[in-house]
């Protein structure tokens, strides 16, 4: 089942488009990132993950409207994934 991934922020600038569709059925965010890198651009993995292999804190990943806690967060069939830039904030400035 393909997964629709919407991009906002820095990653959109790097990849050069606002939406990607991943072929396959990734069960976790980590698998999704690996497939994105394989199918589109290897820079995605380097950009999205930190040195320890988890989601870099300058990004936030939302799955079906809920924030993913890490690369082992589950991706369910049919859920939309949104990736945004992130800094601490969003409450006031």
């Amino acid at each position, binding site marked *: 089942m393909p997964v629709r991934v919407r991009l*906002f*922020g*820095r990653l*959109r*600038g790097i990849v050069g488009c*606002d939406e990607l569709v991943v072929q396959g059925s990734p069960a976790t965010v980590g698998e999704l990132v690996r497939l994105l890198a394989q199918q589109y651009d290897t820079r995605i993995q380097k*950009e999205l993950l930190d040195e320890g292999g988890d*989601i*870099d*804190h*300058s*990004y*936030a990943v*939302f799955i079906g*409207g*809920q*924030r993913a*806690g*890490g690369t082992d967060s589950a991706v369910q069939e049919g859920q939309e994934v*949104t990736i*945004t*830039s*992130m*800094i*601490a*904030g*969003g*409450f*006031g*400035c």
Partner: protein
Amino acid sequence: MLTRKIAYVDLSPDVSGRTETVPPEWRRRYVGARGVNMHLLYSRYPPVDPLSPDNPLIFGCGLLTGLPGFGSGRMNVTAYSPASGNLGDSNVGGHFGPELRFAGYDHLVITGQSPRPVYLLIQDDRIEIRDASRLWGQTTLETQQMLRHELNDDRLRVLTIGPAGERLVRMASIITGPKDAAGRFGMGAVMGSKNLKAVAVRGSQDLTVAHPRELLDYGREQLDALWRRKWVQALGRQGTPLLIAPANEGGWLLTRNDQAGPLGERGRSMYAESLEPYSLGMASCFGCTVHCRHRHEIKGGPRGEGPEYSVFGWGAANLDVPDTEFVIRANDLVNAYGMDVMDTLVMIGFAFELYQRGIISRSTAGGPLEWGDGETALALIHQIARREGIGDILAEGSYALAKLPREAGPYLLRVKNAIVGPAPGGRVVKSFALGHSVATIGGHLHRNRPGIDVLGLPPQVLADLYEGPASSDYRSYEGKARMVWWHELLYAVCDSLGFCRFQTVFNSPHAPQYPQYQRLIQLALDWDMSVEELREAGERIYTTERLLLGRLGVGTREHDTLPQRWLEEPVAGGPCQGEVIDQAQLDRFLDQYYALHGWDNNGQPRPDTVKALGIA
């Protein structure tokens, strides 16, 4: 840099000014800017009516304002606040602060009242009070242009009020450049009450530093390290509007004066990308390579700077107008009139809710006030600035409640009579909400905004940063007293050095803080100031502010609370539905927080703490 001056100017007729060297022990103990401003206020100026001639308007540059790097263009403006009736303090960027230092001054204390409109011209040692009658009534940008033209100096730096400050609108700001604002707490109304339209400065003096070459090398090394960070690059590309996406997706960017849930799919039309058609590139304050602010142009309209995330939050989301062009127009209008963007938009949302609830009638409002009506919101900005119609009531900010039916009270979200409004995240991000209850300028995020816990970092990263446990779950209360306290001390030091918050532990844990500050102070001033000494200075500044609140009658536990809506009404929809602040958790937070500061259980600084900090 090594010896600095304070200029005292009294605008009343026949009173002469004077200058004084900043006592070295003040700089060592209160650092500069906000810290020294607070010491001046506490030790020399008892509370007065904020709009009276005796209220001192204190401009203060940081200990390191004007050095290359670290966003060192910042300064603080401090006075008793006509917006809250309590303590007022506002931090402003741009280029004015460094220029004031190049003229030889670190602080400027303005008292008295001129019988007619005047402006202050500072050219190195010469300070003149000049007639400003032709500037009166002009917008903030026009005033700056007129002064530059008249004085034939393109590099003149100006802090000015707009028509709102002249009319004593309680949320009037002081502006420099197109949008840099000492925005909060009505500092523009204080300036207006003195008949002071502007302060213009041009300096030609060097800032002498102890170790120039090493300072430049170290500054470059730190800037390079900062610029390699992904979050800095993201901020430099999209500015604070990059936050609209995670805040809306995460469900803490709420609507309709915090009554309704997030905008959801509709909100996507105003994510940072929507600014691109209007953008003319990014601009910077003095000494900053991050360049986080947009320069924009609406076709056929004037150029401007911004808008920041806050205008999207308090304007577009709050008023249910997810339209980027509306946000830009509101931003430019508020800045041209010289008003605080947050308080102005909060007052408009408040009026919309009163109308929705039938608390104010169509005739009082001057027409329907409907959620989603951007044109009416823009019309209200004009009315507030000109004090026309219902705008005359809204221009009173918190004091508008005295002119409205009693039922209106709970819908204006306040802490210590300072407007909080529907701060995005108010019931969701617990550290952020709890911080509002104890902020020394009333409910305002910038005294202690933690928020590192929204990054989802491993708990150990937070434990190392805060030197104690703090939950990395932003909905949890655990360890949040420690976070709030830790950030209060750091921000007091950062402000007092004259550095930008965006270049310290504000957006990321991996940003400069005490060790880097310690090294910079050593290279600039040849002072060996330990990390402990810096932290103690932060505690001294914060406790001085708390003592000032005590003098103003709001420095005890009963005043450390939150808006009723945050305590009683759970978030109405979206991913954060049901979130609310638990009163018992707030009480527990206060116990822990007071203990960390060395204050008693009623929130008053203990005598031994005051003595140990040497506050007098």
